[in-house]
């Protein structure tokens, strides 16, 4: 499992590898929580690539409802069908009516599509942004891997998709949903692992630059910031410095490119006051 994920360029630690293994074998969703930018969403992409399955993504937002997430009837096509029947002179009203609610007039939205695609990886992104009511929709889906369409009956997945749910903890997700899932908390990675991730994602960048920036970000995380930078920000920062043609970073350069890691004015101001030179000379001693 682990080797399969790492082949896609996504580095996992032991806990996450076990989580993925269990998710596949127990057919349970993985519920991923953690700060933004620690690789929750990337996990789903890596899983999809490792399993050779398509990734089906449902981005949650406030006010999302069943017709956007599950299915919708294709009204224009139904009308067209009626008109065509009219033109052809079919008058058997009862048959016509039953034809209207046929599977071919059902537009599959991400959740239904995931059930019908075998195999597939379903990513329900930022579930905490959706409303409470939406979680209830997910319950049936995640426990039985089935969707009930009143006019059509229950559509069931032959083999359940791999489901990854992510949350940024802006809202507490209901326990009824969570207890159907494997819970995994994403911590910020340690220096060694973060460096390995950066090098894997940006192979063309100088080793020294990657080391230095990783050390700086690790130091920044220890500060009391409004939003501590995630791995995504580390990669952004390395990429930004690389784009400037730097093969190593000094305090001055670090301060002038701080905007790619710190996204709040308060944080940037605080970051400016930090002694980057000291961190940089210290960072080199970290193994």
């Amino acid at each position: 499992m682990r080797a399969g994920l790492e082949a896609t360029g996504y580095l996992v630690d032991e806990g996450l590898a076990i989580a993925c293994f269990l998710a596949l074998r127990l057919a349970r969703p993985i519920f991923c929580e953690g700060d933004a930018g620690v690789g929750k969403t990337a996990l789903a992409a890596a899983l999809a690539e490792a399993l050779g399955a398509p990734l089906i993504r449902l981005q949650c937002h406030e006010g999302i409802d069943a017709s956007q997430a599950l299915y919708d009837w294709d009204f224009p096509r139904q009308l067209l069908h009626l008109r065509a029947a009219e033109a052809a002179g079919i008058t058997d009203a009862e048959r016509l009516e039953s034809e209207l609610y046929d599977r071919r007039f059902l537009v599959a939205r991400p959740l239904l599509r995931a059930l019908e695609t075998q195999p597939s990886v379903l990513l329900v992104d930022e579930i905490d942004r959706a409303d409470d009511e939406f979680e209830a929709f997910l319950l049936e889906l995640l426990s039985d891997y089935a969707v009930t369409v009143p006019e059509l009956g229950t559509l069931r997945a032959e083999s359940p998709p791999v489901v990854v749910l992510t949350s940024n903890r802006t809202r507490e997700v209901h326990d009824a949903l969570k207890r159907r899932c494997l819970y995994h908390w994403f911590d910020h990675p340690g220096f060694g692992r973060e460096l390995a991730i950066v090098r894997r994602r940006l192979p063309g960048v100088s080793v020294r630059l990657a080391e230095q920036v990783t050390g700086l970000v690790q130091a920044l995380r220890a500060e009391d910031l409004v939003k501590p930078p995630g791995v995504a920000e580390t990669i952004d920062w390395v990429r930004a410095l690389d784009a400037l043609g730097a093969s190593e970073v000094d305090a001055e350069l670090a301060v002038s490119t701080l905007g790619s890691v710190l996204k709040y004015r308060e944080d940037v101001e605080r970051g400016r006051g930090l002694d980057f030179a000291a961190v940089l000379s210290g960072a080199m001693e970290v193994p």
Partner: protein
Amino acid sequence: MGGSSSDAPSWLVAQFPAPLKGVDAALLGFARALRVVGVNASAERLHAFLRAVDLLGPTRRTDLYWAGRLTLCGERDDLERYERVFAAYFGSGEPAARAMPAAPVTRLRVVARDATGSRTTTQREAEAPPMAALAGSAEVLRHRDFAQLNTDEKAQLHRMLAAFALRGETRRSARRRPARRGDVDPRRTVRELLRRGGEPSRLLRHTQADRPRRVVLLVDVSGSMAPYADALLRFAHAAVRGPRTEVFTVGTRLTRVTRELSHRDPDLAMAAVSAAVPDWRGGTRLGVLLREFLDRWGQRGMARGAVVVLLSDGWERGDPELLAAQMRRLRRLAHRVIWANPRKARPGYAPLAAGMAAALPSVDAFVEGHSLAALESLAAVVRGADRA
């Protein structure tokens, strides 16, 4: 305690190869110990845990650790408790392979029956923190005066305050939102109609939306309020999580602390506030500061239509007449003016302090503010529950 092997303490069962039941009893006892410390390890989670252990084979300590952590925990706060119980139960360090006997295949059916038979966990439970006892004291604490708490009680109070929520009374907003009943929403209906090829479909409706009013808290941090200021500011911290809440401290100066309080962690927020507020435990110039608040913030819109809460004992050093005038001004601007006075709960209290007496005619609701229960009823008044 019987003599059979399954009645041995569960950590012993965990250490030695035992009949099948022994392993399950150990895992079950572990889950029960987790429940005692407050992890919500429900039956469904336990079921998943046993299946996971079965799948991974309980030979390696790390596998067991992750199987439990992934299936039994449900939120971040659980993780730390899980770590503690796991260490207590299966030993904290290496050697990793020794913690569980090798290879026995666990079967769920056996476990379910074993659940009632195992009394081996009581020992462990006794070591866990007595959460039930804490829950009992919470009720007592709710009614205690903040000024008379010891350090432990304060710590518990802080945790309870962190769970507070403060919502302003709702008002009808100008915006409309989609609804099941209400007026026909012409735009959405026509758009839906067009999407369906011009075929008339259902009528979509909308109705006017309600919005909570802004809540403005003015917290007195002068010397006379010293025993209460910390608890009230923590209350304010919990309130600031709501989107439309502003907090100011008043003493000898007016300080806006909304931003300082926006730290998620209460202790960090309190540290930020104490760094920002220059006039802790000084005197009180309520009238002057209220005028400053109204000039700089209130008149421009912050107090307009808002629920303004003053948390103060009303001991005014300055001119009571000025305070009275400013209170009248505030009342004309604000939707409601609420005064919470921690001293109101003292037996024989009468609003004799010059400032308090001057302010009272312009106050819509005069409430207590000395205990958790009092703050709860204050939150109800802010929500408009007393008038409903």
